[in-house]
């Protein structure tokens, strides 16, 4: 499981060796799309609202801190609400070429525990987001193609499709393909459609309220994932982003998780 929330906003926009309509390949488009929302070091407070088809709502509040050290993106996710999970903390080392390393601290157990970083297709915290959605995808696992252009709320976008190279990859990620809508003007991704293993549309991710956080860097402050099959909706709202703090490596250590 590669929990990297920032990559959620790029969707799975990924590469292609095929040149696009304007001389750019899907790889180049997705790369630029990822770069434009890559804030590097950051601290983020956010809330996830989970709504089911009957209208009932659950709320999760989290704080996330992330920074890259020696090519390893280290992320700390701490639950701040509801109170029964308050203090539960995840530490993820997002390794480029190997499996991720993950630890969890649960206040009730009073110890840090190493956990298996599998089940990318599993729901993230009971939301419609999956662990795979929160991850940087392994680009080598997918075939990419430009499907053409489309209009999204008045903005001209590229339609980039990514497909898993085999069924194992699809099963691990929980989808067979995605189609991403990327703004031609600024490379911001506004929408990603996820198709299930049978090829049916399952979930739609929409990114709203992009704000200019630092020079040439943007971030979506509201992201909605709708499951069109079970009518559940999960909405992630960013409450605060701080990109100015240079976090020391020792806070990304398993033995620093316990409060």
């Amino acid at each position, binding site marked *: 499981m590669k929990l990297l929330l920032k990559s959620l906003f790029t969707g799975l926009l990924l590469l292609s060796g095929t040149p696009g309509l304007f001389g750019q390949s899907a790889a180049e488009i997705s790369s630029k799309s990822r770069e434009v929302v890559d804030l590097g070091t950051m601290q983020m407070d956010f809330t996830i609202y989970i709504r089911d088809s009957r209208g009932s709502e659950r709320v999760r509040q989290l704080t996330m801190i992330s920074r890259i050290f020696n090519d390893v993106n280290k992320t700390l996710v701490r639950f701040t609400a509801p109170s029964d999970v308050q203090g539960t903390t995840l530490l993820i080392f997002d390794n480029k070429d190997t499996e991720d390393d993950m630890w969890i601290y649960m206040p009730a157990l009073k110890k840090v525990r190493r956990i298996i970083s599998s089940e990318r297709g599993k729901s993230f*915290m009971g939301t419609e987001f999956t662990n795979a959605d929160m991850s940087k995808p392994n680009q080598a696992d997918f075939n990419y193609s430009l499907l053409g252009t489309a209009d999204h709320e008045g903005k001209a976008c590229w339609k980039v499709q990514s497909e898993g190279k085999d069924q194992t990859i699809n099963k691990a990620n929980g989808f067979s393909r995605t189609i991403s809508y990327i703004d031609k003007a600024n490379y911001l991704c506004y929408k990603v459609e996820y198709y299930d293993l049978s090829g049916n549309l399952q979930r739609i991710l929409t990114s709203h309220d992009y704000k200019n956080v630092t020079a040439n860097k943007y971030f979506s402050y509201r992201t909605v994932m709708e499951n069109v099959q079970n009518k559940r909706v999960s909405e992630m709202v960013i409450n605060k982003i701080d990109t100015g703090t240079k976090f020391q490596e020792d806070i990304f250590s398993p033995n620093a998780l316990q409060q």
Partner: protein
Amino acid sequence: MKRFFFFVILISTALQARAQWNGNTDLAIHGYGRGSVYGGSKAYDLASVFAEFSLQASARKGPAVLVSDIRFSTGMFYNEKDTRFLIRELYAGYKSRKFDVFLGNQIVNWGRTDGFNPTNNINPNDYFFLSSDPADQQLSNFMLKMQYRPLPGIDLELVAIPFYKMSDYRFDLFDMGELGNYLLFGDDMLPERILANGTYAVRANFDFPEFGASVSWFQGYDPYHGFNVVSVNWTSAQPVVRIASTPYRKTAIGADLAIPVGNLMIVRAEAAYNHTKNPDKKMFIPNPDISYVVGIETNVLGCIVIGQYIGKYTFDFFPLSVPVSPNANDPASLVQYAEKYIDYENRLFNRKVFNQQERTNHAVSLTLTRSFAYDVLSFECTGYYNITSKEWFVRPKLSWRISDALMAAVGGNYMRGGEKTLYGYSSAIMNGAFAELKVIF
């Protein structure tokens, strides 16, 4: 009643503090209220029925940290009405990037294996507190805890406990058959409250992507105590034996390990050598032994599976032999025989407590955990089988997160053992089902 008023004052003070707290301080006050029912055993229709309110608060201002978990419960426990005010945790201290020091009532858990931790000797347990969550059985102890983190992934921990607190076994609830007719449980034999009787433990812990490991040293009274014969009343034809919970000192050297094998599994292991003195002279002191656990955790079809082997090797082990019945016409030898028999029975009982019934003891455990419906439902089941003593238990539990504030849990506990085994005795009390409703805030 005094406890109740004290608790009300405490809550009022906490809420007032939250209202007036300076904005530079992180103050979190939360907790829960719950109703819990546990019953269905042979001895008790309802072994444990209680309502509980928990107030958990933490405050942090710069490096200053205060943590508390205070619980107030009232109900029936083994047919006895009781109202309890428990300071489960309450400690204050200093926390920085490299160094922490905390003083107060704390719970410290060591060890990387699951449920069976040979290196975890710090805190006592109330094994007879029945609820949906086994963590409720953990008891804090007043201690000084210091932690130093010289480098990322490395920490050194020191624990010093001035006064001993023992685990609660409540063996007085057992129906011990004929043995129970001449066996009484006396007051706990606590060590004198001097620093020389304190407990000291240190651990060096390493957490790296490739592996996690620790080595630890413990010197002090073991919370998992034994039983000693404190008196024998010979005035009646049948001698009445009074035994009491009696702790013993030990030195434990431990180590644990966790190694991830790709994305496939995590291999965990933990072991401790426990050194004791004079076990042959004192029946409540176990023989030196080495306890070890090896396990794997993996994912199978979305289910977390943890399988473990739990073993123990007892040094200087010798089988106990039943004293030979003497000449009935010799009163002196009859008394001597009775003394030997009492010693034999109590050593036998202690060996069950210490899990030293054979030179080598073998057991296995299996835990399955699975969540459903977007984590709204979660199921967990643990099974344990002691190959040596033929005792076993199974504990299923289903938790339902009805809303963010309301949770329910149902489950059960079924244990079984042969005649005169600990599980045999315990099953009559602890077997049963439980249900719990909890509101969190």
